[in-house]
């Protein structure tokens, strides 16, 4: 270990003993969160999230492909994170390392396990064709707390995603198009999706126009992360705090105030009381962040 982290640790813990943090926040406070959606035109959905100086961009691409044999009627989602060297002097190019894989998997789990995307509504023809959803996360500027920034960016991007039906139809020839249009139109008849207009009445059936529709989603849980340094629990760690942290805990809470996911990281440990403290803070901050998220997508 070099000397700089030792000095920084000293400085940060000294401040913490006085109830302070290096950027002047209280222990429970988040840095300023800024969510901007629809930032990439070529993507089906996209969002840029800033938490303080940390900046993350998430883009959603969709395609049509085969479902997994064991789930023939559900769509497929996959998540990838890129720690591009642009974001930090410590990031290197090449295939994703441990950290990028962990981040992608935590974000993926948050979306998949709480069934935020209604994948069962993304089936076109059982066992043959379903929609594939690709969530790609690009770290642009790394100043700590990537878990929260990345999962928030993924949610904001998903919530603004339009399933690119018209783009897909453009790639087919006349005959294929007619048959696919029929099949694609079926997914509009599923409750919850069929409010989207596609053609007016029976007489115009042959020219039934299938349009892009919003990705079917449910209210998502929000992730909040805290770290522990000595005995102090700090929410939304910045880079300097994260580097010296003993242990990290991410808690995802839903709009009813229930817990939907947790992930502990690093080699330290938490007491039961500390975990309660993190959960309480995650609920409070989660509510605020949810408001910001809803606001950013125009709700």
């Amino acid at each position, binding site marked *: 270990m070099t000397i700089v982290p030792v000095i920084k640790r000293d400085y940060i813990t000294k401040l913490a003993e006085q109830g302070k943090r290096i950027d002047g926040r209280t222990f429970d406070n988040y840095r300023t969160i800024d969510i901007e959606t629809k*930032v*990439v*035109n*070529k*993507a089906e959905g996209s969002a840029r999230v800033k938490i303080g100086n940390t*900046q993350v961009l998430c*883009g959603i691409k969709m395609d049509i492909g085969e479902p997994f044999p064991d789930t023939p009627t559900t769509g497929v989602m996959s998540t990838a994170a890129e720690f591009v060297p642009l*974001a930090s002097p410590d990031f290197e190019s090449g295939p994703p390392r441990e950290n990028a894989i962990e981040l992608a998997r935590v974000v993926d789990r948050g979306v998949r396990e709480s069934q935020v995307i209604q994948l069962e509504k993304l089936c076109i023809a059982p066992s043959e064709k379903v929609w594939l959803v690709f969530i790609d996360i690009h770290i642009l*500027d*790394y100043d700590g707390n990537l878990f929260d920034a990345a999962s928030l960016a993924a949610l904001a991007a998903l919530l603004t995603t339009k399933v690119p039906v018209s783009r897909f139809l453009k790639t087919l020839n006349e005959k294929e198009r007619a048959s696919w249009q029929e099949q694609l139109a079926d997914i509009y008849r599923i409750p919850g999706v069929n409010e989207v207009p596609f053609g007016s009445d029976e007489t115009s059936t042959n020219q039934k126009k299938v349009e892009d529709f919003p990705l079917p989603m449910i209210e998502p849980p929000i992730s909040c992360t805290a770290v522990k340094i000595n005995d102090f629990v700090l929410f939304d760690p910045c880079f300097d705090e994260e580097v010296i942290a003993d242990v990290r805990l991410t808690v995802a809470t839903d709009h009813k105030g229930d817990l939907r996911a947790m992930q502990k990281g690093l080699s330290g440990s938490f007491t039961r009381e500390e975990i309660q403290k993190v959960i309480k803070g995650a609920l409070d901050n989660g509510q605020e962040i949810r408001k910001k998220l809803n606001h950013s997508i125009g709700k």
Partner: protein
Amino acid sequence: MKSDIKLITDEGKRLDGRGPHDLRKIKIEAGVLHRADGSCYLEWGGNKVLAAVYGPREAVPRHTQNPLKAIVQARYNMAAFSVEDRKRPGPDRRSVEISKVISEALEKVILTEYFPRASIDVNIEVLDAEAGTRCAGLSAAAVALVDAGIPMRDIPVACAAGKIEGQVVLDLGKEEDNFGDADLPIAISPRTDEVLLLQMDGHFTVNEFNQAFDLALKGCHTVSEIQKKAILEKYQSVVAEVQE
């Protein structure tokens, strides 16, 4: 590749309403990232590009070091979601080639002999793509290098010209790139008009090439002014901050 799309209307306008010698809209901002030593965000028509510079710092692995001067390593990378059909993440043959030609172009203007054994890393991320990303990337990288305080002989700049429906035009757009006849991206050192990068594909007559080259050169100088304005704005904002 031929298509039925008419790239130039009877009134002489292009698909996006530009005349033959018009550039797309360009917006440049310097110093947008916190961790990087220097950075730049650039929008060029539908292209959105971020560039970040790290260094000069010790070149690793050691065997890449040059005892007499710094090495310049540009890395051009496209985001998976930046194009119509998702691009598989990571370097492919195309981006390796583009990284190489950009590195070489930048190396020419950087005073590398000031930093033996060091490396100057330039990362270019294409976030949204719409024809002409290498020119956009190089022009953004140049501003990021200035923002990082890297000593340079000049601020390099790039722009492309091409041929559509037999006519030489400046700065090809998306359909023009796909269905046009030729494309000529160049990068220059604007003080001396030395050419730092030149690629061409398609079909030009010598006369057309000369026309296209001159047009691209003119385009480069226009972009160069926008670069300088962005750098000046960054400096002025720093001055204002210090005075506060």
